[in-house]
């Protein structure tokens, strides 16, 4: 599904990603952990095409489509979704209006017919129930006056409606209490399917207790330095990232993931 090769990227002329490799197959959930400043959020922004992030080298393909050639909105329409770490407010634009415009744009790109307002409203109500947001949140301005947890749940709501191929969750657990964390995780788990993949970016193993990843990668200094299965997350949790520095870069693990 996603194939990243030798990706080098920079922000404001500072190199952040330095030869990152990652292969994700349909239906897989990959967790990316790593210390602050390792480039975790940058990876999400580079893949989704945020302005100001430039790619110097390498490639990133989604189902054979060269992502790096596309505008941000085209990548979104191709099935790439980023759940933001800090969702921004858009005052006066109702959530419903925003979601409808968004779903319309993505459906149009897929060659699907626009949903009628009635069908869309029904879908949106069901989705908001699923993430435990009262229906009146649909009428409120996008994230306007939402609490941290409500904003994160609103991101998941958008994911449920857009039905992307690949979802990147950028520290969706930060600032959440355990109840909100469970809602977010349940939303994600309900969307796991053989043709949808996830990249879960997180600092802590906690989220991974709820969203069980197939693979765990450690991103440090712009590269994947270690890959493994779920147990790696526990190891990191108990030993901290400093432990990695004493280990040689684990090329073999990366290759394993790439192959299998």
């Amino acid at each position, binding site marked *: 599904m996603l194939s990243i090769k030798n990706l080098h990227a920079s922000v404001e002329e500072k190199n952040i990603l330095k030869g990152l490799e990652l292969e994700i197959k349909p239906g897989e959930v990959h967790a990316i952990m790593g210390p602050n400043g390792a480039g975790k959020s940058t990876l999400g922004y580079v893949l989704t095409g945020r302005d100001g992030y430039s790619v110097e080298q390498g490639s990133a393909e989604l189902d054979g489509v060269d992502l790096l050639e596309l*505008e941000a*909105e085209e990548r*979104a329409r191709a099935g790439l979704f980023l759940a933001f770490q800090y969702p921004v407010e858009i005052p006066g*634009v109702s959530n419903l209006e925003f979601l409808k415009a968004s779903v319309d744009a993505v459906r149009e790109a897929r060659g699907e017919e626009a949903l009628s307002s009635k069908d869309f409203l029904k879908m949106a109500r069901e989705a908001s129930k699923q993430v435990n947001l009262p229906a009146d949140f649909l009428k409120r301005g996008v994230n306007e006056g939402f609490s941290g947890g409500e904003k994160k749940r609103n991101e998941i709501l*958008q994911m449920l409606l857009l039905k992307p191929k690949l979802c990147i969750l950028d520290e969706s657990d930060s600032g959440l209490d355990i109840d909100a964390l469970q809602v977010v995780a349940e939303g994600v788990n309900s969307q796991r399917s053989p043709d949808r993949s996830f990249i879960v970016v997180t600092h802590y193993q906690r989220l991974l207790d709820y969203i069980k990843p197939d693979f765990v990668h450690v991103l440090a200094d712009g590269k994947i330095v270690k890959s493994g299965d779920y147990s790696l997350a526990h190891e990191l949790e108990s030993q901290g990232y400093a432990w990695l520095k004493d280990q040689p870069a684990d090329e073999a693990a990366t290759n394993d993931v790439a192959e299998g």
Partner: protein
Amino acid sequence: MTEQIEKALQREYEAGFVSDIESDTFEPGLNEDIIRRISAMKEEPEWMLEWRLKAYRSWLEMDEPEWAHVHYPEIDFQSISYYSAPKSMKDKPKSLDEVDPELLKTYEKLGIPLHEQMMLAGVAVDAVFDSVSVVTTFRDKLEEAGVIFCPISEAVHKYPELVKKYLGSVVPQRDNYYAALNCAVFTDGSFVYIPKGTKCPMELSTYFRINEQNTGQFERTLIIADEGSHVSYLEGCTAPQRDENQLHAAVVELVALDDAEIKYSTVQNWYPGDENGKGGIYNFVTKRGICHTNAKISWTQVETGSAVTWKYPSCILKGDNSIGEFYSVALTRGAQQADTGTKMIHLGKNTKSTIISKGISAGKSNNSYRGLVRMNPGAAGARNFTQCDSLLIGDKCGAHTFPYVESRNPTAIVEHEATTSKVSDDQMFLCQQRGLDPEKAVSMIVNGFCKEVFKELPMEFAVEAGKLLEISLEGSVG
């Protein structure tokens, strides 16, 4: 990202075409003779001519105001033509069938079909082309309800007592430089009278079009809502795309007698000039209403056009318990300049006013809010609430707020809130990440910002205003 937004803001001015219509146009110049000729063209009674000449003599002694936060080259008033009318209007067409089809086509092209069967149901239109009113629709239906809706030039003949009594009663001739000029040379505009206790059965609307080159448009609107009556009125305006600046100096007077209510909405889309400030309309307008006891006047304006705008629709809250409202969206882009706001003069007890102003600046434009709230000694228990929000798009534009508050009554309450925000990269990226192109994203964010004002517009026009902003923000991104 800024670059992307800037691109999204570039657009064509859709109303910029010129109609090929033969006109009778005065040679440029301003003097007493010209005023006599305007008056003669309109076959005005002597008192009207005297009124004009008195205003002209006052104007000669007055100075152009310089306090506004706008800059433009000195206007040569002798290089402007003060009267222009389509030749075909000379014969005074009695029905639509006699009106030059080219004129009707112009309005159709602007989305204002004048044939009643094609029109928006429930909206009567007075169409003013350069210096004359071309046609006023649905007059019969309005007359049945006792409502008078006609060109002001006609009202001077037919309803001289009403005109004499109220013309200049809200905006005195010497009120300001441009108002005095308008009094001297006004050519046409709309006159409305709603009888006692009557709710006007339709929305009334005037559509102003400047077509002829080197002419100024000086329209005059007078609306009188008699006791307990109710009316909603809308004006729209456009002009061709030209390299020269053209002057538009209008005066609008509203009179809301006891218990009456007037809702006045404006969608102003004069040609704004090009990206570098070449051409465009100078929009110097005086609008004011007076509220008697328990009366209410509500101004709503959506200002997207004009090179320079200088405009402060105001309310004199004379009667006890009267209410004044001002809802404004002003969008400037390219090299546009706007200095706009309102004055709420509280004279009566328990008078209330609300001011909601939304300024959006893009390109290298300058957008100023200027507002005065005055609580006179008699305004016991009066209240005002003001909210001024500015939205900046890009980093070369300016937003300014000049609030003046004068309170001479200790029981009066004045509240003022102001915010300035930017269309942020984060907002743009969120929209794009959800599949929206940058154009759609900007227009959605801006529309959201204006929501509080749009909801005040009559239904048909709220849609129009939203579209207008979309057109204003439409561009060549792709």
